């Protein structure tokens, strides 16, 4: 395992591209407005509108960037190192929502987001499987 500049850069890309993707989806959907769930024809009509939005496509591109960098970084760095680092994404998404979209984030929500980051960090730190010990050294 090499934890170097390359790994940190890729994790940085992940931690920014993932939340940015969600923020762009949020921006696009806010412009489209609440989607009627029923009747099905209305849902279909709105569904088509979703894919005419530039923000949505940029969001999807950003999420693909996240996914590719995630796969790439996992090809040389340990899962148990990459996963906890990605818990930061929950903080970044709140920051971006606040800074880019001008969302009002209450102190209680900031606190909740911080606790979620910590919780996800702890969950992913413990390893995805109890059988992981045997697989170490292969990655």
């Amino acid at each position, binding site marked *: 395992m090499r934890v170097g500049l390359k790994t940190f850069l890729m994790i940085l890309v992940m931690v920014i591209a993932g939340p940015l993707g969600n923020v762009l989806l949020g921006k696009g959907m806010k412009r489209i407005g609440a*989607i009627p769930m029923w009747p099905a024809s209305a849902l279909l009509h709105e569904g088509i509108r979703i894919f005419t939005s530039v923000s949505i496509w940029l969001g999807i591109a950003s999420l693909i960037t996240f996914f590719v960098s995630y796969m790439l970084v996992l090809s040389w760095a340990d899962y148990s190192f990459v996963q906890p680092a990605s818990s930061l994404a929950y903080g970044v998404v709140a920051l971006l929502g606040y800074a880019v979209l001008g969302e009002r984030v209450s102190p209680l929500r900031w606190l909740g987001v911080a606790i979620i980051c910590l919780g996800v960090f702890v969950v992913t730190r*413990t390893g995805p499987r109890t059988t992981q010990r045997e697989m170490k050294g292969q990655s």
Partner: protein
Amino acid sequence: MRDLILFTTIVAAGTGGELCVSRAMKNVGEALSFHPAEIFRVILRALKQPWMWAGVSMMALAFFALLGALSVYNVSFVVPITALSYVAGALGGLLFLHERVSFWRWIGVLLVAIGVTFVFLGKS
């Protein structure tokens, strides 16, 4: 009611989709190299797995539910709530796959649940 359906779909279909895809990829086996021909072979084998199609459909469903939720709520509210997938993952692993969930994992899951509760209560 609509919110309950949306958030449950995001978490349940997302986690279920990942479980299906991971099951499909276990059948496909490890990619032996990053050579384009090998990657092509892995993708082709993956597409022949029924679990893969089930997984991709569920993930697509979760994606559209996410778009639906984002059309109503702020992204700084919706995305933290989706962290509930870690709670669903631990419970699903315990109930359906009979996995052992370690003490620290439960602590993390509990923290996520507390955090999500705060985000919910902080809905302005």
